[in-house]
């Protein structure tokens, strides 16, 4: 769907801004908000560019830089930390050969840290795009990443 089409699904009211930005980001192949997308949004809502930019840069779920197809958000809050999430992070970094904040060279994965995902009963946990993965361990991490690699191959 084009940027304009996505935006026009919403009423042109400022209170729809976050929902619009989510929709635009989710539909972008780089999982991010392009300048063009923000400009169109500003125009549609009758806002200045900075009003949109200020919002887009405030919320951690939005990215202004192109990211991988799959965003790994790994929880680093106290419970997951207690459950040794640092080991999991290192493992993901080594599997994907990236550091936190980076995107893998095949542009499939971006590794990000997240505050508490509310899955503390089965820590450590993470999300890959919309899906939650819990009770992470060395084996499950490998499996999950492999699953997404396969998924990418299929389409």
């Amino acid at each position, binding site marked *: 769907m084009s940027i304009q089409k996505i935006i026009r699904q919403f009423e042109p*009211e*400022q*209170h*729809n*801004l*976050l*929902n619009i*930005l*989510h929709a635009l980001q989710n539909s972008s192949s780089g999982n991010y908000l392009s300048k063009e997308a923000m400009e169109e949004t500003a125009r549609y*809502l009758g806002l200045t560019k900075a*009003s949109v930019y*200020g*919002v887009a840069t*405030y*919320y*951690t*779920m*939005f990215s202004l830089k192109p990211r991988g197809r799959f965003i790994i*958000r790994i929880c*680093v*809050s*106290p*419970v997951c*930390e*207690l459950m040794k999430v640092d080991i999991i992070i290192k493992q993901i970094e080594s599997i994907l050969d990236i550091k936190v904040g980076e995107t893998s060279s095949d542009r499939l994965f971006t590794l990000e840290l*997240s*505050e*508490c*995902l*509310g*899955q*503390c*009963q*089965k*820590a450590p946990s993470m*999300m890959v795009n*919309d*899906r*939650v993965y819990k009770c992470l361990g060395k084996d499950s991490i490998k499996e999950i990443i492999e699953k997404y690699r396969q998924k990418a191959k299929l389409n």
Partner: protein
Amino acid sequence: MIKEERILLRNAGKINPMSIEDYIGAGGYRGLEKALGMEPVEVIDELLEAGLRGRGGAGFSTGMKQRFTSESCLRCPQRYVVVNADEGEPGTYKDRVIMEQDPHLYLEGTIIAAHAIRASKGYIYIRGEYQESIDKTRKAVNEAYKKGFLGKNILGSGFDFDIGIKLGAGSYLCGEELTMLESLEGKRGTPRIKPPFPAEKGVFNMPTLVNNVETLANATRILEKGREWYRETGTDTSPGTKIFTISGQVNKPGYYELPLGVSLRQLIELAGGMRGNMQFKAALLGGAAGTFVDASMLDEEMSYDNLRDKGATLGSGAVIVFSREDSITNTLVNCLRFFKHESCGKCIPCRAGTAHLEISARKLKSTANDKQKLLASMIRESELMAATSLCPLGQSPVLPLKSAARYFKDELYGILTE
């Protein structure tokens, strides 16, 4: 051993949360039916008499809040109900459980609240990361419209109410009610000056009731079963149940619905006791903006008032359990890192204060000397931040910091580390 009392979560795991028929079959929407047969002010009285207190953390009387909202600015063309479903306090997931297991439960409470304050429009502000909650709430809202529980002339009562879903996008601070309203309006999540409270000037400057998901779930039950029934559970000043989310070093971490007033020891027992052979060392109650307690608090009654009197907090109902092997310092540092990350930057004590606390906190983890002095100045700074910050975020670091220092001073000084 105590047993769970599933008043709110009686349907959890028993019905299909995606099916409104299931929900109705289990007695759903009767509270609403009853409420619609009552005058709005009677509904408020019912909640007031039931003694319901907000489950978001502050524990303010829900009935009072609704009364203020219903009575303010009678000339205003519109009043709103906003559901605070922006659960982000570390260690907390009680609202997620309700949204995922029984979304109609809080939706019903929302419609009841709207009727109580005569709101014709509402929003549910859900944390952007809670995809499953978002999906299930969407479905619930759609079905409720189809069944006539939302929209025009609800159940033939003449009462109209529409609801929209707004997504957060990664900001803990937006769980603070005035900040949430800013965000809901499509702005940056920065707090507003208080007063005015949302009851006077809320979303779009109109009178607004902001209630937490769990609070509204309670409202459903109170209307369904009545205030006397409700008061049978919990303590006098904190009636009803609370969904505790316990995590960390216990055998069965998870959510447990218990009457307010249970003790920490009872809760840990219910959660299968300490993991393995671990020994209890501490718990962090109420999340990052909460307080550490040690074993001396194990038998204290966990109610809003008693914990406050003991210098602790119930907050959101999060309980993170630590064993002797775990580092309080690490968790404290993590909490302070979290506050820095979530500070919006609007007021200086929080903006720079959280940054400096994090720098100092990292030194706590190092082999730096004179940690005593360091900790003292951190506490002083956090007190000052609490005294001068614009919103609760800047007022929070003092809680874990001071409580950690109170119970685990030696560890923080680096004396006990093995």
